[in-house]
């Protein structure tokens, strides 16, 4: 049973089709990197997993629950899937610990002490223990993104989604975030990452999905994707982002 499964998912904004009949799956413990040119539908695709983007056709099944089914309790489903955004989206009016505690308390019903203990443990893990009482506005981008990852992990998710987690970062901060993600991947977390960091893909991805104009053009094991991409569009894309 795959952890995440897309079955012929299509989505339109008015007349414009952003996702075209997308079918793929992510097994438990698998790390899948989604790449492709801008506007190709990568972010939209992963946001279908936790229903942040509704879709009109097809089915997405997460942890054996159909995302689009009317009986699905979306808040409960979303609580089990961590999500990391391009612009961090920490809550600016709460300090770091409060950011990590909020959903643990309000959604999972943990006590303040339980939540804080969990938060401290995760802050240690992402190397942010010293910043527990700071506000997001007082932290660098890389630090904020590590907090955002910890916030997702605090919910004990069955899978993590990453939507271009390093695209908004200054170059010298990219690695501190990627290091956390690599560690997570090596621990066996199920991950779906939209990213242009091909180094990360080479290191930890099991599969790479290449998208273009709303279609999944290529969906292959890492070695195959980097060795001999079948499609011309994937070859062009790789040559553009790798030879700089």
């Amino acid at each position, binding site marked *: 049973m795959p952890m995440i499964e897309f079955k012929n998912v299509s989505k339109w904004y008015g007349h414009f089709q952003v996702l075209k009949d997308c079918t793929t799956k992510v097994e438990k413990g698998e790390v899948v990197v989604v790449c492709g040119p801008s506007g190709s539908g990568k972010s939209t695709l992963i946001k279908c997993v936790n229903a942040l983007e509704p879709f009109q056709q097809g089915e997405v099944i997460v942890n054996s629950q159909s995302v689009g089914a009317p009986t699905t309790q979306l*808040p409960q489903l979303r609580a089990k899937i961590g*999500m990391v955004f391009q612009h961090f989206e920490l809550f*600016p009016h709460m300090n770091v610990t409060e950011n990590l505690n909020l959903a643990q308390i309000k959604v999972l019903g943990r006590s303040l002490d339980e939540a804080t203990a969990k938060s401290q443990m995760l802050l240690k893990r992402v190397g942010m223990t010293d910043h527990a009482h700071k*506000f*997001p506005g007082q932290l660098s981008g890389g630090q904020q993104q590590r907090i955002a990852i910890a916030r997702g992990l605090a919910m004990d998710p069955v899978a993590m989604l990453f939507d271009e987690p390093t695209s908004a970062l200054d170059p010298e901060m990219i690695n501190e975030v990627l290091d956390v993600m690599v560690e997570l991947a090596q621990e066996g977390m199920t991950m779906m990452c939209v990213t242009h960091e091909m180094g990360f893909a080479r290191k930890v991805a099991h599969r790479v999905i290449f998208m273009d104009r709303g279609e999944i053009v290529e969906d292959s094991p890492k070695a195959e994707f980097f060795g001999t991409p079948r499609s011309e569009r994937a070859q062009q894309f790789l040559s553009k982002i790798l030879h700089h």
Partner: protein
Amino acid sequence: MNYHWNWGVFFQETPEGGTFYWEILLSGLGWTLAVSVVAWLIAMLAGSVIGTLRTTQNRWLTATGHCWVELFRNIPLLVQMFLWYFVIPEFVPPLKRWMVSTDPVYAQFISAVLCLGLFTSARIAEQVRAGIQSLPRGQRLAGMALGLTPLQTYRHVLLPEAFRIIIPPLTSETMNLIKNSSIALTIGLAELTFRAREIGEYTFSFFEAFTAATLVYVIISMSANRVMAVVERRVAVPGLITAGGN
């Protein structure tokens, strides 16, 4: 100008005897404060709810909010005051019977707070909506992605951020509300402006009476301003909304 100022007027007794004119002015101030405070509470409560409704994903809720705002901000305040006090009771016979059978001050007070509260709520609703819509779209998504319900996302994420942003216009709105309360004199509520006019009419010391009333309005408005400034400082978050100033 060779006007002969007579500030002693406030320490003269009124024709009825037993009270001084400064006491009359003070009782007017009492009504001004009472109307302002109650109307402000109504305005903040209704304005927050309506403003929030206008940012939800539900078509019916946004339409309801929209109608509310347009209804209360497209009719002149003075006309609304007359509608509440003179017109609406005509269509509600039990209300009319109650109004003629009790001290008119109750009906005046209730009409005044409803009128000012709802009029101001439309304006506050627009500010709340603007505040919420000024937040990055990702904030709502982040709340939802964590499993918060829409209500929880508003309660813990969107509204606390939006209110911090809109404190300055809310301050203006609060000060406007206080000054707009003088419109209640048109339905006979004996608030500050009403009393100033009354003193003028009894003593012909219009200049003194209105100078005093003006000063009192300035003092209340500035106090409201100071209170809001303290609130703004108290809830300020390090690293947030400081980009443009201080």
